[in-house]
């Protein structure tokens, strides 16, 4: 499986991303594997101007025929959007598997979205409809396990919608900022452990 790496679309000096915002070294393969997702989630973002202690990590699975091209257009148009988005190129939104969506969250993503073609315009006819159903199914799983289905979303856009791409990135970033960091981020886990430890110590002293 050939893996190509996005290196030509990087945050500019002002900390804002120009063009598709995959950070350097993020592999974009036709079939995103666990490593690709892990690398995307692990990549460092830049502050968005929101809460100084929380910069969301958002993984965006972008269809080659629409959202990925829209990201290019957004770059050409010099549109500004938060550098919180890690773009993973997929050959069709229908290629995105529930396992990969969950893996992104497992690796510490605060939010994930799938961006596919407009309904009825899928290059492979029904891929985006299948992606929509899968996203709905994973949302239910996220609700059941306490992560919350709102951290995951499906968007539809065309390759001509550079402005919409930037809008989606901004909207999703705002949503995740509202929801706060993922409860399974290493920092959050460490903080919870420390809090539990402190509580335990307090209980011992009280006795």
């Amino acid at each position, binding site marked *: 499986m050939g893996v190509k790496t996005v290196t030509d679309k990087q945050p500019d000096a002002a900390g804002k991303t120009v063009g598709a915002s995959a950070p350097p070294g993020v592999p974009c393969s036709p079939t995103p594997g666990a490593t690709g997702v892990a690398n995307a989630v692990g990549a460092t973002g830049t502050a968005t101007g929101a809460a100084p202690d929380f910069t969301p990590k958002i993984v965006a699975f972008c269809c080659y025929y629409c959202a990925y091209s829209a990201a290019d257009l957004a770059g050409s148009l010099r549109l500004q959007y938060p550098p919180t988005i890690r773009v993973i190129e997929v050959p069709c939104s229908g290629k995105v*598997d*529930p*396992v990969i969506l*969950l*893996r992104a*969250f*497992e690796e510490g993503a605060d939010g994930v979205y799938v961006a596919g073609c407009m309904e009825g315009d899928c290059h492979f006819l029904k891929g985006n409809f299948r992606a929509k159903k899968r996203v709905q199914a994973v949302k239910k*799983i996220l609700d*059941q*396990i*306490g*992560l919350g289905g709102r951290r995951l979303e499906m968007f539809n856009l065309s390759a001509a919608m550079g402005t919409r791409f930037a809008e989606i990135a901004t909207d999703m970033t705002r949503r995740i900022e509202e929801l706060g960091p993922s*409860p*399974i981020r290493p920092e959050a*886990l460490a903080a*919870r*452990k420390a809090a*539990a430890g402190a509580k335990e110590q307090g209980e011992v002293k009280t006795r």
Partner: protein
Amino acid sequence: MIVAEPKPIAEVAGLIKAAKHVLVVGCGECVTVCQAGGEKEVEILASALRILWKIEGKDGTIDTQTIVRQCEPEYVAELGKKLKDADCVLSLGCGVGVQFIAEAYLDKWVVPGLNTKFGGGTVKAGVWEERCGFCGDCVLHLTGGICPIIRCSKSILNGPCGGSQDGHCEVNKEISCAWQLIYDRLKGLGKLDLLDVIQPAKNWQTSRDGGPRKFVKEEAMIE
């Protein structure tokens, strides 16, 4: 094939609550086809449970393995290596698979991740329907290949009953009346005379009578 459906994640999480190292085991046969316990479903459930454990601050590992068939000892034996470190097995096989794993590994706590539903088949992508009730005495040759035991809500052998209306069952309008289907099929085949024979009460001794059933084929036995 055996059709099963996943238990809710919260219920599964409760079943493995006391475990530290869980091995989620999938089966490559029926439950793969009905998309309840194949390799993909195993990975999805394992990932969801790992996230849940992290949220709950629980330490432990959740590993995965999918074998060809959970209902055959030689494939179940393949679990040996990964199972060594696990203190709990979460089987996504049917009830048969769960029991075969439990029988093979007496020191492991084996729990089911699926509810085994029925003997059925795929009617369209994502939809599976019951076709066989494993009664042990097949009458499909009398009913045009449509099982009155399972497809008739009342399992009657000399139908239809008075609740058959416009080809639908009174139990649920979405259910086709099995006896209407049988009549239409036999009429099409020119075998309506089969319906003239009154079927006696079914002998259920071949079904749930006498404990667990066994089928022995002498010539297939090696020892």
